[in-house]
């Protein structure tokens, strides 16, 4: 051992090769953030090898020479957490893009740092505890009305806690002390947290509450649990954007974190201009007031792209700690995996499948594992639900990123370009999609919707499956060749698709469908199917059964807000029609 315990903060560059540089004489730990070169570019230690420290740099390294200094900050890559996060638009390492435009113009130049939160802005802090109270790490000290969302100011997770000596309300910046403990610890509204480390929780809960989205195919057939994980493949023109916006608008999560990871600049701009214009249907306020956006386009530095998903999920966890339900969307995790591949190949690591690093699966599962519904240290419960988009090259689902993702996530919403070409929206394929939460959520549906719901869903899935088989026969021999009974099955399946599955995001009523209404709709379709079956047993022909007029009225239920009387009338008419048929 030649070095003592004291830290040598300063080292020198030895080699520069693109975004990966080597330093010597630097005491560093893995994932420490370092400042590289005279311009103090931001970098992160990714490998330690003998005397050499290998660093990935988040900015362009052109012009940097061997011999230039490298300084270790001794900290890992951290984000700033506190009031001011909501409505922000960040790059992959939490630099606010709006501030960067002011600081360096329309292009992203290097060597400019900008704090994630405003350190000048004053926030109105209202304490919820008083002097003399005992607090521990994670406990809520007070609140700040950040937007329409109440920001809860907490004791930092790694604090020892203790008895409060002094706490007072008033107007503070995030740097100012709001609370002093007996042992002299000063607490501000600002927390710094290393992005690669999950924030601590007291206990993980079972995923037994669904994240209600108001989208029939999701809530009804393929639900995601609060704190669950889902993957959406995003082929061209499959309506991924609309699906994501519907989730952001309607899901019963209070906070939305959207990560644009390695996506197109112009498309990111669409998100950045559209999101602020979206209205939160529940409050009538801009949706941005409960949203944090992270935008790292494909030509921004690759190392920052790698970091962006961690930045996003750390922010999500922070809001979860306050007791909120958070939904996080990562678009696209394939670009993130490619960033890992690129850095890995610069490190000359032995590649795994298709050149991806051997730790790809581990990194993906670590990331998705940060989702969950939990009891926080302060006793509140909150959740982070993760919805990750994958973009398989050439549409090939057997490639490593898709395969490893599917092994981890519990829900798969198979967006299908063919359906969207047929204008079936949301274009989620009901045969290829799945949700593994069904079992865990059964009880919730029994309790909150109806004990009949779960059998009803199984019935609907059975009909759709049967239809797919029958369609193959129809294509070969024509629909007339089917037995009478199955001709009706085809009709019922059509009703499930067109009445229940298709949903118009742009219709003011149909855009959100409550669970009760979903239940009523499906029950009505089943009701028709049962009556039809009875009629057929009594000798009715398929034409007669399919010809029932009142069933065609069912479709308008979607567009009617107070649908109950209308539905009642339709069901009454339907009964009358069937009765008349039997009489004849």
């Amino acid at each position, binding site marked *: 051992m030649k070095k003592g315990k004291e830290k040598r903060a300063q080292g020198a560059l030895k080699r520069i090769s693109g975004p990966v540089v080597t330093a010597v004489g630097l005491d560093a730990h893995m994932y420490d953030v370092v400042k590289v070169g005279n311009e103090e570019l931001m970098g992160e230690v990714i490998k330690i090898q003998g005397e050499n420290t290998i660093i990935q740099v988040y900015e362009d390294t*052109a012009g940097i020479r061997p011999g230039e200094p490298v300084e270790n900050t001794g900290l890992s890559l951290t984000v700033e957490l506190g009031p001011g996060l909501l409505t922000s638009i960040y790059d992959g390492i939490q630099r606010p893009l709006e501030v960067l435009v002011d600081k360096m113009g329309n292009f992203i*130049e290097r060597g400019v740092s900008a704090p994630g939160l405003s350190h000048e802005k004053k926030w109105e802090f209202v304490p919820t505890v008083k002097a003399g109270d005992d607090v521990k790490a994670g406990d809520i000290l007070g609140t700040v009305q950040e937007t329409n969302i109440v920001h809860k100011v907490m004791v930092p997770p790694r604090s020892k806690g203790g008895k409060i000596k002094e706490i007072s309300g008033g107007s503070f910046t995030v740097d100012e002390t709001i609370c002093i403990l007996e042992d002299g610890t000063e607490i501000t509204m600002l927390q710094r947290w290393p992005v690669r480390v999950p924030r601590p929780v007291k206990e993980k809960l079972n995923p037994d509450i669904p994240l209600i989205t108001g989208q029939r195919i999701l809530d009804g057939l393929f639900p995601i649990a609060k704190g669950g994980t889902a993957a959406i493949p995003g082929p061209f023109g499959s309506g991924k954007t609309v699906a994501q916006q519907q989730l952001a608008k309607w899901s019963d999560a209070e906070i939305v974190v959207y990560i644009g990871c390695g996506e197109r600049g112009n498309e990111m701009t669409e998100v950045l201009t559209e999101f602020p214009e979206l209205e939160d249907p529940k409050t009538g306020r801009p949706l941005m007031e409960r949203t944090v956006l992270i935008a790292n386009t494909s030509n921004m530095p690759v190392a920052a792209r790698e970091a962006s998903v961690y930045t996003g999920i750390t922010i999500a966890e922070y809001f979860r700690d306050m007791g909120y339900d958070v939904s996080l969307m990562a678009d696209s995790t394939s670009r993130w995996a490619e960033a890992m591949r*690129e850095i890995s190949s610069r490190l000359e690591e032995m*590649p795994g499948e298709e050149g991806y690093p051997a730790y790809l699966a581990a990194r993906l599962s670590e990331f998705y594992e940060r989702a969950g519904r939990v009891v926080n240290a302060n006793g509140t419960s909150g959740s982070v639900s993760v919805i990750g988009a994958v973009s398989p090259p*050439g549409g090939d689902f057997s490639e490593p990123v898709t395969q490893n993702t599917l092994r981890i996530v519990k829900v798969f919403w198979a967006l299908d370009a063919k359906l969207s070409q047929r204008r079936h929206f949301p274009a989620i394929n009901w045969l290829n999609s799945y949700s593994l939460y069904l079992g865990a959520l059964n009880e919730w549906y029994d309790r909150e919707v109806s004990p009949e719901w779960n059998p009803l869903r199984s019935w609907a899935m059975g009909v759709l499956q049967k239809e797919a088989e029958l369609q193959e026969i129809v294509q070969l021999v024509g629909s007339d060749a089917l037995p009478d009974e199955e001709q009706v099955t085809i009709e019922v399946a059509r009703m499930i698709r067109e009445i229940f599955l298709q949903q118009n995001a742009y219709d003011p009523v149909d855009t959100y469908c409550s669970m009760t209404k979903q239940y009523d709709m499906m029950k009505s379709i089943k009701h028709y199917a049962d009556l039809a079956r009875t009629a057929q047993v009594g000798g009715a022909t398929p034409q007669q059964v399919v010809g029932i007029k009142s069933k065609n009225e069912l479709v308008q239920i979607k567009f009617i807000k107070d649908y109950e009387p209308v539905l009642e009338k339709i069901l009454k008419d339907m009964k009358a029609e069937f009765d008349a048929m039997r009489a004849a």
Partner: protein
Amino acid sequence: MKEYRTISQIAGPLVFVEKTEPVGYSELVNIVTADGTIKRGQVLDTSDEIVVVQVFETTAGIGRDSGIRFTGETIKMPVGRDMLGRILSGGGKPIDGGPEIVPEKRLETTGAAINPYARAPPADFIQTGISTLDGTNTLVRGQKLPIFSASGLPHNDVALQIARQAKVPGSTEEFAVVFAAMGITREEANYFMADFEKTGALERAVVFLNLADDPAVERIITPRLALTTAEYLAFDLGYHVLVILTDMTNYCEALRQIGAAREEVPGRRGYPGYMYTDLASIYERAGIIKGVKGSVTQIPILTMPGDDITHPIPDLTGYITEGQIVVNRELHRKGIYPPINVLPSLSRLMNLGIGKGHTREDHKKVSDQLYAAYAEGNDLRGLVAIVGKDALSERDRMFLEFADLFEDRFVRQGLYEDRSIEETLDLGWDLLATLPEEQLVRIDRELIQKYHPKYRKKAQG
């Protein structure tokens, strides 16, 4: 400036130099050969012991006795207004016999990323006069829309026709063309140049030529020089710039060549693992900036090896660009020009630039209907091959005929035929009129009554 004579290894386009003073990454390097020729290169890897220089020209003539001079600065491109009308080499040197460029500015060629927050969403329709683009795969200012072609297909004609005819209807703003050729043959280059000269397009064009016999490594910088010029013209001088990059496949081959020379771990099909990021650093240099007058629109052309759209080059390109125009061999064999297959083609920004206030209110619906009807007719062709035409229903036969008609009248047009968007849409309606009205399920009743030839004629007569 210090000169080193410490070359330890030369491998392909790479020169390894030992025992230098600290040299900056990406720095510009001059190599002086024994006969006094100066060759240029760039630092690819720098360390205490060894510096790896990528030479942009042939390494012929470089030996242990060659001198290496490190310039101490990264590659900067002199740019100026008088570049318009000039022809430059792939390395940015004038080759038209004219004077040197008078630099108004010297710019970094790597090009920083546009801050996503500073971008404005593209919205201006560009009329190319080609129905398959304007009608069904609309190009929008600030977009990057590649042409996916293959060897032996007339993609150059398509690109030239776009360059010739592209305009924003009703706009009088100045626009310019930046043309970058990478590894194309002298013959092809002459073809482009002759057309530029004939149509007078050269006056408002800047041409970069890296030909097939020019060093492959030079191809790495050619598109970057072209885009630096384009950004200068657009964001400093306010021009609307159309950039044509051809052939991106040659660019990627050069990238692979350097990767192999550096003994890097290869990715798919031997292309470097960082090809996605590298291509993004080219393609993403398109767009519009809030509050700035000009714009950069890109049309990269690439030839798909073996007509394979899942090959890494088209595949990665498709994930960065906003759609693709696919040139199709079958249509070409049928003698149809331009042989653009609308089915796999896509413009992701189309909806931002069409409709009321941009083109015409019926544009989206007509496009959807044409697309759907052609898709259906095209599917039926497969069926006809098995069961014969007689087995088809009346309805199917109509769609089958529609597909032929669509190719013959909508897709096919003259090399110099410049159709306005109104002509394109009306032509679409004429074709749709051959189908029964109740089959036009994607078009609202109102629009049918306003634009369908049947009603139009009544209204006029």
